[in-house]
């Protein structure tokens, strides 16, 4: 009796082409996307952009910069990119570098202070010598830690003579003559090193706030210039990322009412009244938009109440981004519904498209950790623009006026998708 059951199920599956396609296409598609993101070739691994400000301009500091430039995983920028290739913009200063990190142009900036070259390396973690400042955007939890480590490595590999010279100085300082006093000092120094070693093993590095790094031969003071006052830094990112993905699902589901009405004959009856197709679709778009916006409000209020998201100080930006995102998502749902002939088709197509958009657009995995090509591909999705906008509002504390690129794109997407949906919906008007 099992065989007839299998046979019936197989025939049913074969007839349901949408389900059949989903069964095979969806896993392959997602495997491919994540393979590109995580398991691609070496040259697809994203490079970290680091802004370097060399205030010292010494031989030593320049060698350090050159050493950093030789690192394959870093892109070193000493001056802002110019739109005109013939015009070179002035070099970054500490202030402009900090502004650039705040604006999201780079996740990390290094400031090499004046006097750095005179005493670049210390095995003692001297507090009074010039310290490199590492300015970070703590939304990118990987970049600053990687740069911090590479900085120490570059110091070792690109300045061996400086190391030797410094070592000699230490030898003179600590072991010259081996007098009683020298022996004492050496013991003290060793004891300090041991204590430091123990302390580091116990606490690790400080991820945010002002904190001099004592773990390396180069003294680095790390400071988070974005998100330093956030209680829960990644909450706003995930509220937007997850929110947009579910908004897309909700909108496509709500738009499916159009297919239900077409199937039951209600759509024809409505269109035989004073309601035109444009009015009907516009009504459904407004409903979808309001529904999506309500979902966002609930999500962000929940994030505020439970995860301490700073919602109340960002309401204008939230409203602007929320409305634009909701409109784009609502129109997207209308388009999917107008393309599909049945609810089953809509379910299959929306699952496929939304999951792809969400994975490429950064709802499942932050885009800044993806290869550059994938980051660019993400710009074709509603998710990416929405997440970027919400990040500007909640993470970077940028004013509403700075949201114009995201607002323009999302509104444009909304208008264009609605226009296409209206055109396709012509098939329901009359035969």
């Amino acid at each position: 009796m099992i065989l007839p059951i299998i046979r019936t199920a197989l025939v049913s599956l074969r007839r349901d082409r949408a389900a059949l396609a989903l069964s095979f296409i969806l896993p392959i598609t997602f495997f491919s996307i994540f393979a590109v993101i995580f398991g691609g070739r070496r040259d697809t691994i994203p490079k970290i952009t680091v802004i370097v400000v060399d205030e010292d301009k010494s031989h030593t500091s320049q060698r350090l910069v050159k050493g950093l430039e030789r690192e394959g995983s870093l892109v070193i920028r000493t001056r802002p990119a110019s739109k005109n290739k013939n015009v070179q913009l002035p070099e970054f200063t500490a202030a402009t570098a900090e502004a650039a990190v705040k604006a999201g142009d780079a996740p990390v900036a290094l400031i090499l202070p004046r006097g750095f070259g005179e005493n670049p390396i210390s095995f003692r973690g001297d507090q009074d010598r010039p310290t490199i400042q590492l300015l970070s955007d703590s939304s990118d939890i990987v970049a600053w830690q990687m740069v911090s480590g590479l900085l120490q490595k570059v110091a070792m590999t690109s300045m061996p003579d400086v190391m030797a010279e410094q070592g000699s100085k230490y030898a003179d300082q600590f072991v010259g003559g081996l007098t009683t006093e020298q022996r004492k000092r050496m013991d003290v120094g060793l004891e300090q090193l041991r204590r430091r070693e123990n302390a580091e093993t116990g606490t690790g590095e400080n991820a945010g706030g002002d904190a001099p790094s004592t773990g390396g031969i180069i003294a680095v003071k790390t400071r988070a210039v974005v998100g330093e006052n956030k209680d829960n830094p990644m909450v706003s990112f995930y509220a937007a990322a997850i929110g947009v993905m579910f908004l897309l699902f909700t909108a496509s589901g709500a738009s499916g009412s159009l297919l239900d009405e077409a199937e039951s004959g209600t759509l024809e009856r409505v269109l035989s009244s004073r309601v035109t197709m444009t009015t009907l679709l516009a009504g459904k778009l407004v409903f979808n938009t309001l529904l999506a916006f309500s979902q966002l409000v609930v999500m962000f209020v929940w994030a505020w109440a439970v995860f301490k998201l700073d919602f109340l100080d960002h309401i204008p930006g939230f409203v602007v981004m929320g409305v634009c995102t909701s409109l784009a998502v609502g129109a997207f749902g209308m388009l999917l519904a107008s393309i599909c002939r049945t609810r089953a088709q809509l379910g299959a197509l929306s699952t496929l498209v939304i999951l792809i958009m969400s994975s490429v657009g950064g709802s499942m995995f932050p885009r800044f950790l993806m290869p550059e090509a994938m980051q660019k591909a993400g710009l074709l999705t509603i998710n990416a623009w929405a997440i970027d906008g919400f990040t500007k509002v909640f993470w970077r504390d940028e004013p509403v006026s700075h949201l114009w690129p995201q607002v323009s794109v999302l509104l444009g997407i909304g208008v264009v998708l609605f226009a296409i949906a209206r055109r396709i919906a012509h098939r329901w008007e009359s035969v």
Partner: protein
Amino acid sequence: MSAPTGPTSPSFLPLQIEALVKRFGQVTAVNDITLELRGGECLGLLGPNGAGKSTLIRSIVGRVVPDAGRVAVFGSPANSVAARAALGWVPQELALYPRLTCKENLESFGRYHGLAGTGLREAVAWCLDWASLKDRATELTKNLSGGMRRRLNMAAGIIHRPKLVLMDEPTVGVDPQSRNRIFEMIEKLHAEGTAIIYTTHYMEEAERLCDRVAIVDHGRIIALGTNQELVENAFASRSQVLARFSSSVGVVSAWVEHRGGRLVDSTAEFTVERPTEIASLLDDATRAGLEVVDVSLRRPNLESVFLHLTGRELRD
């Protein structure tokens, strides 16, 4: 949206159709139909499934764009704003919102027709009363019985009190008791002077409700008139003799064919000028070795007319 306007002009007929043609690929669903509906008249479109009745109705509503011909509702082209306001449509499907209550459904369709405020409230109350659904006003539509849903479907089509109502087989799938209630609703509407086009493939419905009947087959109107006119045109003063025999179907069939009659569901049908012809018919049957079970004489009806005109039964 403003309040609904009435018919564009009382001087126009509720409905005028001229040489209407609609094709779907190779199939001609409506084939050169010309038809007029008079004020306050109930016209039946009688024909088997697939005859083109629903396509004709949908052409009047404006949901189907004809390949040729013209449809005017109170003088306005089909699908114009004036035509939409003047006509009400009760589709064959249960075109309702299942998760809305009866009242909410009526309110929604009322608003779609431009009703608001007191006008809407009064229209909803009237419709609930008309459809005998007052005590079910707050019931979800999906929880209603089939007959109740049918009545609500009708009420939603006339919420804006149109002067012309198109009803596309409103009794499909309804039990006899609910069907009677639906007939009463239509009769009430008709008595108030509403012009109605009523499509059905049930002869008895057309006979009971319609002032005139158009018999539709293969996209054409093959006969049009009152019940009496149709029967007289087809049969004049002739009557029908129905006889059943206990003999084998093959023998009966051969004899019926020889006598110029028809065998329908094991019953032999003959048309006779005078009742006295029955005796000679039965004598002939006896001579042919057939054993008569019963015999009856009846006046031809619309079904007889349809059979006479098309050679097929109405429910084929």
